[in-house]
């Protein structure tokens, strides 16, 4: 009993001390987990690679064999500030289910908007060999004109008049007037507000609608543009379109 009596004040003292220390010297924040999941669709229906033939807004038929894109610099905005994911580079690849979701710790808060970049910032494009999501092994790095392919879509279409009716979009270019780097800000709609709580996970589900590649600011028909594999005006137009493909579908506060 004596021991117990001694332990209590010591316990309180130590907790107080630790808090005091943390507040003063290392402001650690209480965190929860954010899990972001991408669902790649065509007009709301999940994309099926190779097996399903789709029609674009111009009634051109096509299949999809590859669909991947970089999401970087993820940040969440709250009332008077922004939380940023550190070293935020993700390659979302429809053929790799594990790449469609990723998690990171975020400060406890309620957030109003999700911010991110589609592509890889210019600095990482000129800084030599990278690893992780930016590893050239991911087949998203050009070897003739250094830089990342920011988004890639490949498939086939009878409307494509190139070899094997290929459709091939490797969209890149990180500088100048044809830079394809796009920043997006998606506001969380009412009823879908991420409420990050200590030790809990909040899941944010984002839909990426591939159908938006064909239309939006620019009408891009397969018959006219079956291939885009260099930086330039067409790549920029494609990026203008696909930057509009993301919507927040669901937020689950667990």
């Amino acid at each position, binding site marked *: 009993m004596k021991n117990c009596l001694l332990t209590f004040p010591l316990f309180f003292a130590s907790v107080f001390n630790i808090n005091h220390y943390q507040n003063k010297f290392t402001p650690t924040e209480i965190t929860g987990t954010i899990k972001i999941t991408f669902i790649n669709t065509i007009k709301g229906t999940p994309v099926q690679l190779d097996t399903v033939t789709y029609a674009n807004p111009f009634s051109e038929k096509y299949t999809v064999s590859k669909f991947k894109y970089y999401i970087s610099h993820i940040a969440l905005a709250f009332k008077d500030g922004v939380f940023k994911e550190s070293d935020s580079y993700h390659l979302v690849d429809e053929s790799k289910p594990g790449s469609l979701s990723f998690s990171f710790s975020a400060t406890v808060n309620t957030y109003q908007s999700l911010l991110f970049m589609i592509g890889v910032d210019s600095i990482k494009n*000129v800084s*030599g060999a990278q*690893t992780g999501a930016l590893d*050239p*092994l991911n087949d998203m*790095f050009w*070897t*003739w004109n*250094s830089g990342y392919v920011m988004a890639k879509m490949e498939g086939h279409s009878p409307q494509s008049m190139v070899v094997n009716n290929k459709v091939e979009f490797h969209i890149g270019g990180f500088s100048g007037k044809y830079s394809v780097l796009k920043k997006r800000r998606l506001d969380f709609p009412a009823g879908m507000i991420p409420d990050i709580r200590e030790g809990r996970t909040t899941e944010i589900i984002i839909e990426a609608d591939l159908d938006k590649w064909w239309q939006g600011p620019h009408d891009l028909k397969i018959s006219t543009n079956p291939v885009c594999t260099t930086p330039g005006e067409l790549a920029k137009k494609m990026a203008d379109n696909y930057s509009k493909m993301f919507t927040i579908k669901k937020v689950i506060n667990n």
Partner: protein
Amino acid sequence: MKIRIIILLCTCIGLYILFIGAGKKIPVVQDKDTAYTPIYLEFKIPDGWPKPPTDIFAKNRLTEPGFQLGKKLFYDGRLSKDGNFPCASCHQQFAAFASYEHDFSHGFNNSFTTRNAPPLFNLAWMTKLHWDGGINHIEVQPLSPITAKNEMAEILDSVLYKLKKDTAYPKFFKAAFGSTEINSQRMLKALAQFMGSIVSSNSKYDKVQRGEASFTPGEGNGYNFFKVKCAACHKEPLFTDNSFRNNGMALNAFLQDFGRMRITGNKNDSLKFKVPSLRNIMLTFPYMHDGRYYSIGSAIDHYRTGIITTQPTLDTLLLKRIAISAREKSDLIYFLNTLTDTTLTRSPRFAER
């Protein structure tokens, strides 16, 4: 076998002492976070040379094991699809790391490259690589020849698979980077350490600059002519300003190679190619981006009489061609001969074994 290994080991240690250890202070910097304590090497800038525009070793600190791993990779055929095409197959030390006597180099399955292989030296001063400047960092440069179907024709995954299967490589990677992990970043950084370390700065010209030798009258006349007529683009001491210029050659009808325009998409860059260094020029024939001139004489004649002056993007310094008399031409060739650096071409440090 054992004896051979011992001899090899002794040779390695000997060479190490000879070229690195001897008389040189090596700063020892300790990484606090890990037990791995690399010994960093100093990249020495020759006296009187400009500092490299960016420090390629700033985020890839030069170490002896890193350099040795890079060298091993550079000479390893397994970086190519069929094992026949190491980096060194087109970049031969005796040719200052260019392809000797080849307009186009040979690649996988009896293919040709589409441009003349450039020599490899003084890359630490080069911010853009390739004739068209398409490669923006020395670390990502090897991806190009490794994956090109008419060069090494391999895929990166397979290269790493082969390296991981090898018994020696994990040890080399551990020595260079602190653990046996083999990944593309480490491989590319090691290659950059080897290639970036190649410096050519000990030709007769360099010795003359340092007061250790003197030009013959012909060489001296050639040098004076060079300074007036050539040095604007082939700027000393690197003998290039690393710019992209159109020197007035006809478009190669087969290759349809418009040079820098392919990278920038700007029609003002049509037919512009990187100004090559004139260092080791006598070893790097044939000349120009497509190796169209076999001899140094015909390359010089291009500037005298061959320049097509009607091309809209022709370099303004070449609008009237360059007046070169027969005497000046022969003096110039005497001078160009002084740019050959046999210290580099014979250095065991950069040699395969």
